[in-house]
C-alpha cells in the first residue's frame, strides 16, 4: 500500500479506515446512524458546541490533565539497566487521565456524546461498560444533565467491578447485568444494540470506545484527541521538543487513539499499542485482537477479531475487565496494517507486577487497563537511551481494581 500524505484524514465518507470500519448494522438503526453522522458534522463545525464543551472540560472534568515526569520510575529503570550493564533508561512521562472527574479518560468522550444527544433531543441514554469506567462516566453526565441512563454490563463484570456498579447506582443509573454469551463486554454491547433497536426513537447509544458503526470510531477519537493535543503542548513546554515514543493500553482503543492521533503525522514519534495477553498468547486465553486475531465483522464494523474458523466470536480473557473484548477499533486495525503503530502485548502477570511497581514508586495506583501499558514501559524504557522521551497514557485510577488485585495476590480486604 502507498503511504498516504496524512494519517489523520480518516475515515472516508463511508466510514472506512483501509478495509476496516464501515456500517454493519440492522436496517432499523441505519436512519438514526445517518442522522447522528449529520448531527455530529454540524456540531463539529459549530464554534458554540466547541466552546460549551471546552467550558465543561475545564470546570467539570478538570482539564487539562497534567503531563507528569515519573522521576522515581525513571530512576528505577535506569538502575535496572545499569545493573544489566546497559546505560539505557528513557525519561518517562505519564499523561494523568486518571485525575479527570470520574477517574479515567472515558469522561472526555462521554461529555462530547452527551452534549450531542442533547442537541439531537434524545433524553434516554444507553451505554455498555466493561470495567465500569465508561458506565460511571455516562451515569455521571446523565446525572449532571438530568437524562435517563441505562447501563448494560456483563454479569461477570458486575461481579468483578462492584465498586463501579455501586457508583453508577448512586448516580441514578439503572445497571442491567447481561447474562447472555460470555457475560462480559461484548455481550453488554450486544444487549445495548438490542435495546437501541427497540427504543430507537428516543434513545441515544453512547458507545465507550473507538469502535462500532461509522461515525462512532472517528467521533469518539475526536473527543479523545484532547489527550494528545494537550500532551503535545505540555511536552513542548517541558522539553522543547516532541516525544520519541507514545504508549497506551488498547481495549477498544480510545485512550490510545486519543493520545496517538495528533502525532500520527510526526514521523519521529514511535507509537505502541498494548493489547492484553491474558495468560499468554499461546494459551489462547487473551484479548489481543490484532496480535492473535483476524479481520471479521462485529458490532457494526470490520476489524481484527478473536474468532474460530467458522467466524464464531471467541471469548476474550484478561484480568482487566476494560480490555476483555475480542475486537478493537477499526482505526487501530488500519494503523497496524500500514505499520504506523506497533501493537505489542502484556500478560496478566506482567500487568499485576507493574501495578505494584507504580503504586510503590510513584504513589499512583493505576487502573489494571493502563497497568498493561506500564508493563511494557518497564521493558521498553530500559532498552531506550536516557535522552529518549516516552509518554504513557495513565488512562485511569486503580481504586476499582483493588479487589481483583487483592484476590490475585492472595490478600484479604
Amino acid at each position, binding site marked *: 500500500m502507498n503511504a498516504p500524505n496524512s494519517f489523520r484524514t480518516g475515515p472516508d465518507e*463511508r466510514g472506512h479506515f483501509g478495509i476496516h470500519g*464501515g*456500517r*454493519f*448494522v*440492522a*436496517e*432499523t*438503526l*441505519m*436512519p*438514526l446512524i445517518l442522522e447522528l453522522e449529520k448531527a455530529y458534522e454540524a456540531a463539529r463545525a459549530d464554534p458554540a458546541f466547541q466552546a460549551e464543551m471546552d467550558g465543561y472540560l475545564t470546570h467539570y472534568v478538570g482539564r487539562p490533565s497534567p503531563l507528569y515526569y515519573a522521576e522515581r520510575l525513571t530512576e528505577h529503570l535506569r538502575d535496572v539497566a545499569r545493573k544489566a550493564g546497559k546505560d539505557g533508561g528513557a525519561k518517562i512521562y505519564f499523561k494523568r487521565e486518571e485525575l479527570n472527574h470520574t477517574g479515567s479518560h472515558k469522561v472526555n468522550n462521554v461529555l462530547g456524546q452527551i452534549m450531542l444527544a442533547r442537541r439531537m433531543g434524545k433524553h434516554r441514554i444507553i451505554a455498555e461498560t466493561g470495567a465500569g469506567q465508561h458506565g460511571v462516566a455516562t451515569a455521571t453526565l446523565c446525572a449532571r444533565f438530568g437524562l435517563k441512563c441505562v447501563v448494560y454490563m456483563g454479569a461477570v463484570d458486575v461481579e468483578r467491578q462492584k465498586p463501579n456498579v455501586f457508583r453508577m447506582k448512586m448516580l441514578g443509573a439503572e445497571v442491567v447485568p447481561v447474562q*447472555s*454469551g460470555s457475560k462480559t463486554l*461484548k*455481550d453488554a454491547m*450486544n444487549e445495548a*444494540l*438490542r435495546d437501541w*433497536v*427497540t*427504543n*430507537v*426513537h428516543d434513545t441515544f447509544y453512547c458507545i465507550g470506545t473507538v469502535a462500532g458503526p461509522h461515525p462512532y470510531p472517528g467521533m469518539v477519537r475526536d473527543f479523545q484527541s484532547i489527550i494528545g493535543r494537550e500532551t503535545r503542548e505540555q511536552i513542548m513546554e517541558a522539553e522543547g521538543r516532541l516525544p520519541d515514543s507514545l504508549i497506551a493500553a488498547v481495549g477498544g482503543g480510545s485512550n490510545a487513539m486519543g493520545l496517538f492521533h495528533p502525532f500520527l503525522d510526526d514521523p519521529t514519534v514511535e507509537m505502541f499499542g498494548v493489547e492484553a495477553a491474558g495468560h499468554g498468547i499461546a494459551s489462547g486465553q487473551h484479548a489481543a485482537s490484532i496480535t492473535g486475531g*483476524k479481520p*471479521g*465483522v*462485529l*458490532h*457494526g464494523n*470490520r476489524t481484527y*477479531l478473536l*474468532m474460530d*474458523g*467458522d*467466524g*464464531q*466470536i471467541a471469548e476474550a480473557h484478561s484480568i482487566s475487565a476494560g480490555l476483555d473484548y475480542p475486537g478493537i477499533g477499526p482505526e487501530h486495525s488500519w494503523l497496524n496494517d500500514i505499520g504506523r503503530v506497533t501493537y505489542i502485548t502484556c500478560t496478566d502477570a506482567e500487568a499485576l507486577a507493574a501495578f505494584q511497581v507504580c503504586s510503590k514508586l510513584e504513589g499512583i495506583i493505576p487502573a489494571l487497563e493502563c497497568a498493561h501499558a506500564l508493563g511494557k514501559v518497564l521493558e521498553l524504557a530500559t532498552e531506550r537511551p536516557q535522552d529518549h522521551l516516552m509518554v504513557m497514557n495513565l488512562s485511569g485510577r486503580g481504586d476499582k481494581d483493588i479487589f481483583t488485585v487483592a484476590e490475585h495476590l492472595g490478600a484479604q480486604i
Partner: protein
Amino acid sequence: MTSPTTSPTRIDDRFQALAKEGRPGLVTFITAGDPDGATSLAILKALPGAGADVIELGVPFTDPMADGPAIQAAGLRALRAGQTLAKTLGMVKAFREGDATTPIVLMGYFNPIYVYGVDRFLADAKAAGVDGLIVVDLPPEEDDELCLPALAAGIDFIRLATPTTDDRRLPAVLKHTAGFVYYVSITGITGSATPDADAVGTAVKRIKGHTALPVAVGFGVKTPEQAAAIAKGADAVVVGSALVETVRASLDSHGKATAETVPAVEQLARALADAVRAVRR
C-alpha cells in the same frame, strides 16, 4: 416483475403460485443445527408437508444482535452441538435431494459468511440449493460486500424494511432487493412485542407503492391467530421464535432432542399453515 437475478428463482415461482391460489404464504424460521444436526434436518424435511411455503434457515452466530432470547438460545444450542456454516449448507443439500421446489433462505449475520469467503460461500450455497439470503447486519450502505455478488451469482438478496425506513430511504432499501421484501413489523428484536395488524397492513401498502415484489411480514408473530391477522395484509407472514421455542420446550433436561421434538414443531407449523391458508386475498 421478477427479481433482477438472471432467471426466476424458486422464490419467484413460489410467490407466483401463491398469487394464483389467491392466498398468503407461511414462511417458517428454524435455526440450523438446533438442537442437533440430525433432528434439525428432520424438522427441515417435515416443514413443507406441514404447510410451510418458504423456509428460512437461521445460520447460528455467537453474537446475534438483532435476536431476542429464544433465537439467541437456539443458536447457542446449535453451536454447542457443533453446527458450522459448512454443515448448514450440507443440510440444505440433503433437503434438496427430496424437495426441489420449496425455497430456502439462509438468515443470519455477516461474519460467518465473510470468514468462509464470499465467493466460495456463494458458489457452495448455489450448488447446495440455497435460493436467498437475509443478512441482518448488511444495510444497503454495504451492498458491495455480499448483496451485489449474491445477485450476480443468482441468489436473491432479501432486504429488511423496518418502521424506521421512511419513504425517502425506501427506494435505496428496495433497489437491490430480490425475491421478496421482509417487513420487520416492530422496532425491536425477534420474538419480542406483538405487531399491530392494522399498522402492519398500512406499512405493507406503503412498501407496495414502491415495489412490485411480494412483501412478507415478521418479528413478533407467535400464534396461528396472529399469523392469520397479519397475513390478511401481506403476501406472507414469517414465524420464527415460536417454532424455535417449541423446539426448546420439547427437549429433555440435558437439552437433548426427544421423540416429541419433530412432531411438536410439525404440529405448530401445521396449525399456523391452516390459519394462514384460510385467509383469502
